[in-house]
């Protein structure tokens, strides 16, 4: 079908109907959210319908995780959801395909005032706001077992490895994953940014990067080091694993496993070229975007506002333990007391925005991490040069 024609007909129809007040017309909206959020999204949609009578709402929910949103969107923008949740590292790709409807005017003022400056910045590109901040927890920090480590031990990675070795336990970190491995490079002061030509800028092969890579090699060679995916951490925490780098989505599992000994802290510092450097982390938010090709942009904006409002964010925290971006919700006592969110918020001092990372970074970074985990003896500088040439391709 001719989508252009369809879109213009739909637009015309919308304008015509909008000009006739009091007429109950059907507004069809499609919302994409992750599997875990479906129940809550369903409730919020029902509330929205009840709060906005006089319109025949036809709102459908679809399961698309925040990580897959951009991929699924680009498969067929015209058939994609009107509102979709996405991780803010996809912001640049989505904007370059003109996928997101800008949030401007009084709506921008309201969103910018209600949400933390960091979360608004994470949804902003070249001065334009492209998404409603939804949750501010797309980051990682350290979970640890209080019975093994003291609060002082977890300040330094070297100390942690020493204590863990003595106790016959492991320190878990998924080094063969670009998201986590960047912690060392960014902590050492390397740059991962977007150049004026829109290409990735990366200096992981600088002397600073080399020092970080040497630290990674030392870490992965330590007998107390353990890698794996989330299931490994969830299975081993409290048993063979005494500390692990992960994010808030594992908070409940960690709490279950550790019980009394559950604790969380910012990432430790590591020895980098003879100096102590604090491990950095990617800090990302999850945003709710409105499809620029939506036939009902205005209604979609209203619903998105409702899903990301203060009351909704508090419920996301209560039911899903997701960290709020809304200033009022983030100031709620229950949120402030949350151990995992407190650690994340402390780590955010060393946070680096993830929106400046292009898709091409993840594969090569994973490959480099694998080389380290496999205890490769290859020349580090050579590997880093390869990494950078791939990432900046």
């Amino acid at each position: 079908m001719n989508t252009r024609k369809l879109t213009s007909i739909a637009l015309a129809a919308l304008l015509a109907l909008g000009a006739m007040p009091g007429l109950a017309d059907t507004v069809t909206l499609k919302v994409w959210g992750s599997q875990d959020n479906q129940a809550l999204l369903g409730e919020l949609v029902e509330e929205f319908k009840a709060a906005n009578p006089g319109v025949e709402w036809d709102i459908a929910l679809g399961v698309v995780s925040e990580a897959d949103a951009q991929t699924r969107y680009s498969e067929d923008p015209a058939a994609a959801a009107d509102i979709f949740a996405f991780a803010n590292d996809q912001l640049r790709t989505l904007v370059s395909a003109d996928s997101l409807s800008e949030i401007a005017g009084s709506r921008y003022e309201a969103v910018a005032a209600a949400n933390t400056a960091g979360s608004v910045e994470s949804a902003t590109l070249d001065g334009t706001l492209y998404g409603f901040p939804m949750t501010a927890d797309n980051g990682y920090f350290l979970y640890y077992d209080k019975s093994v480590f003291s609060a002082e031990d977890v300040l330094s990675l070297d100390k942690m490895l020493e204590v863990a070795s003595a106790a016959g336990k492991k320190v878990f970190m998924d080094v063969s994953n670009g998201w986590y491995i960047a912690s060392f490079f960014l902590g050492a002061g390397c740059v991962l940014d977007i150049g004026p030509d829109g290409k990735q800028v990366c200096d992981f092969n600088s002397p600073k990067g080399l020092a970080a890579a040497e630290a990674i090699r030392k870490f992965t060679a330590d007998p107390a080091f353990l890698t794996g995916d989330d299931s490994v951490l969830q299975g081993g925490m409290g048993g063979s694993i005494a500390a692990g780098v992960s994010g808030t989505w594992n908070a409940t599992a960690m709490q279950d496993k550790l019980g009394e000994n559950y604790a969380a802290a910012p990432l430790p510092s590591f020895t980098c070229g003879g100096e102590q450097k604090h491990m950095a982390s990617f800090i990302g938010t999850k945003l709710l975007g409105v499809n620029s090709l939506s036939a009902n942009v205005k209604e979609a904006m209203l619903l998105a506002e409702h899903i990301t409002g203060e009351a909704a964010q508090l419920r996301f925290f209560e039911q899903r333990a997701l960290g709020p971006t809304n200033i009022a919700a983030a100031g709620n006592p229950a949120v402030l007391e949350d151990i995992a969110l407190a650690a994340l918020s402390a780590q955010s001092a060393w946070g680096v925005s993830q929106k400046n990372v292009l898709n091409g970074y993840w594969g090569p970074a994973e490959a480099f991490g694998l080389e380290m985990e496999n205890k490769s003896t290859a020349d580090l500088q050579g590997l880093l040069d390869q990494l950078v040439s791939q990432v900046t391709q």
Partner: protein
Amino acid sequence: MAKNKRDPFYQRLAGGFNEYFRMFREGDAWTRLSYLIMGAGSFARGQIVKGLLFLSGEAAFVWFYAAFGWRYLKDFGSLGTNAQLRVWDEIDEVYRRVPGDNSMLILLYSVLTLAAILPLVMLWKANVRAAFKAQKIRESKQKPPGFITDLRTLLDSRFHMTLLSFPMVTLALFTALPIVFMVLIAFTNFDKAHQPPGSLFSWTGLANIRGVISSNPLYARSFGGILGWTFVWAVFATFSNYILGIVLALMINKKGIRLKRMWRTIFVTTIAIPQFVSLMLVSKMFTDTGVVNVILQRLRVVNSPIPFLTDANWARVMVIMVNIWVGIPYTMLMSTGILMNIPAELYESASIDGATPIQTFVSITMPYMLFVTGPYLITTFVGNINNFNVIYLLTAGGPATLDYYQGGKTDLLVTWLYKLTVNEQNYSLASTIGIFIFVIVAALSLTVYNLTGSVKKEDQFS
């Protein structure tokens, strides 16, 4: 096959044209008019319905071009120049999009529009021939057949047309046209930086193909490396399954083996579980903290986990081994039937001559099997070159490597292509690789197929 009777292509083409020149020379005014206004000849000879059909076909074509096709076809050269615009809506305080050009739709509909010329040419030829034929019939003082009579022939002398028209149309629409569309993408810069409707893409000629072959060292190295492994994989995956499947079938068929049915059933049960389920489970079993490594470590066979899926060489061996495990039952089933068909006298005379079991296998069983299953082997080989399931579900192409552009050490061309499309939105590069895969696979299968015994000694099958 009567190859020698076939004219070279261009002679046939010229012959085709000549016929229409001849009909134009010999035709009267009405027939000549049919060359321009379709159906004119048929009208003049009283074949009204037929004439109407020809005329409406031409009208439909003109309407299609004017109302739809031309809008896209005029931008075919540039693939669009105006990206979509945004307009501020004061009242609702939202930006609304004003649709602009969309390179992908321009390309897609241009292909469709160009392809619409084909049915027109066919209709035009039918129209000219019909006009000329009707003229000849009139000249011999006879009445040309009416519409009903013509329709009847569709159930009789032209029954093949009735049967084949539907499959041909669907084949052209759903197979041929998409392929042309996707091949054309290889000559554009449709990648993550050029995603319509936000930013348009344009023609880049042979840049992608040059990139893969030489001008982009990283692409070229990745392509070469992944192609090499694809072949190693295809050879091992095909022949290991084939030979081991035959050996297994032979062992079960051997006289003196008891409970043959039970053995066969046990091996076939692996087919009962969906392949992807087995593969996903196996990939979990062989991780560093998976069940296999845990058992090996508990038994003190190894001290540290074996990197089954994270070391390049291990991973490559593993995918081949697991493929044997999921693939053998199929070969076993197939060869059981064929093995039972080998004449027993051959084996008897061999044993009288004192042949060892290995000699019988090499000189009787294998040649017989190869003769019968040659074409099957080729399809399996080609299938393995494009064996997405086993690789993607087991290792997802990993372990990732810095040697290849966004690829891993067990990536086949087809899984690499998948990653480039889905993760990188590099559709043009993926399309280029797709063309390469097609050329390689087509050349290989045609050559090997023509060399197999089943083709060369087609008539000697006993």
